[in-house]
């Protein structure tokens, strides 16, 4: 009995890990990168208090943060074909995760932008810099350092949230595990196994995060 389980676990390990490396990680990396870019733009629009765009950003954040990620996935993947928009599972997951992450990270970055002492912006104007130059060279670098730990947490959350993509037929780690389980019916062992692999991924990211934080120790402070 135990020998059978051990054999199943050993055989299934690479079968689960490979989609982890080929689907879960690329999905997370792509969605997080795009989401980060969305977040910076959305945060800057709010920080600059650009009239109409600012309202649009607030609306975007309100809707995305106020609805479940799973519902967002279903609306885009199962809902949009009704109006003739068909997107393949993987790109669909990338879009939904990116848009979702963008809303959360935008708030993180906006808070960090507001924590940068305002006098530096005035000083930037006084040496002749433009708003864009001041943001790019002075304010954003400081804000991103402040936001780094929170963004790291969000990245780790996203690794785990990608398991939701199984619901829109992306054959990532969790869906693969479900399929293996339907053959052998060892739910306890197999779901513990996939949980362990998620834990490994998260552990690596946590290590990278604390390394990053050390490297980014405040300017001039050790």
């Amino acid at each position: 009995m135990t020998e059978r389980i051990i054999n199943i676990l050993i055989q299934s390990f690479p079968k689960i890990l490979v989609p982890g490396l080929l689907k879960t990680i690329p999905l997370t990396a792509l969605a997080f990168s795009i989401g980060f870019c969305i977040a910076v733009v959305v945060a800057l629009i709010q920080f600059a208090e650009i009239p109409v765009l600012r309202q649009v950003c607030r609306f975007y954040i309100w809707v995305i943060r106020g609805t479940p990620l799973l519902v967002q996935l279903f609306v885009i993947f199962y809902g949009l074909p009704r109006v003739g928009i068909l997107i393949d599972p993987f790109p669909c997951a990338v879009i939904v995760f990116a848009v979702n992450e963008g809303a959360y990270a935008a708030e993180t970055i906006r808070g960090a932008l507001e924590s940068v002492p305002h006098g530096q912006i005035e000083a930037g104007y006084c040496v002749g810099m433009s708003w864009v130059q001041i943001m790019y060279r002075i304010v954003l670098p400081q804000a991103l350092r402040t936001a780094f730990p929170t963004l790291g947490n969000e990245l780790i959350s996203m690794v785990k949230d990608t398991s939701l993509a199984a619901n829109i037929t992306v054959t990532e780690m969790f869906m693969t595990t479900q399929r293996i389980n339907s053959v052998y019916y060892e739910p306890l062992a197999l779901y513990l196994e996939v949980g362990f692999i998620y834990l490994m991924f998260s552990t690596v990211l946590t290590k990278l995060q604390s390394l990053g934080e050390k490297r980014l120790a405040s300017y001039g402070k050790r």
Partner: protein
Amino acid sequence: MPMLEIKNLRKSFDGLDVLKGISLSVEKGDVISILGPSGGGKTTFLRCVNFLEKADGGEMVFDGRHIDLARVSGREMREVRMKTGFVFQNYNLFLNKTALQNVTEGLVTARRMEKAKAESLAMAALDKVGLAERASYYPVQLSGGQQQRVAIARALVTEPEIIYFDEPTSALDPELTGEVLSVMRDLAREGQTLLVVTHEIGFARNVSSRVCFIEGGVMVESAPVEEFFGAPKEARTRAFIQAITSKEV
């Protein structure tokens, strides 16, 4: 023709008139101290002159160029700021940049100067304020007086027509004000045009060529330094001078 002329500058915050039509004329090489009680509008005046606050009305003639202060465009603001320097009460150094990078930033980013050239100019500026050996330090590693001297280097490196100082020593320990004031005195001696909002009566008396007294949003008196301290015209100015000099005793 004066290098900088401000005419009838007006500014209010939420219906409260902070500046009620202030005029000032600055010649090249002038060192002008602006004195007056706190809340009188000195700082607001200086901030309006460099567009950190938007004036409600008034005119500026700078370097032969005419500007309507209530309708100044972004481009005009930037063009004027390219020729001026500003030193803040709280230094406002860029915290993510070293002392050297703080000084080169305006040259490299705003003026598109080559990095090597900017760095040699910046080192000369830091040397002038006595901080060449601190070039690689970040602001948090510097004392208040050192930070303010870096801020002065940042302002003077662009060779501005005029440098504005907004209470440059007010945030400093008495021990540290001396090093900042002596840098300012050196600048004045070299003929740099300065407009200084200050509470340092000694600086006003010994370094400036002209002294203005602003109170209640009005320019109460503006006179050459000997006249201002020796024979002030306005009773209010006399009372103010008496109050601050008796404090020194």
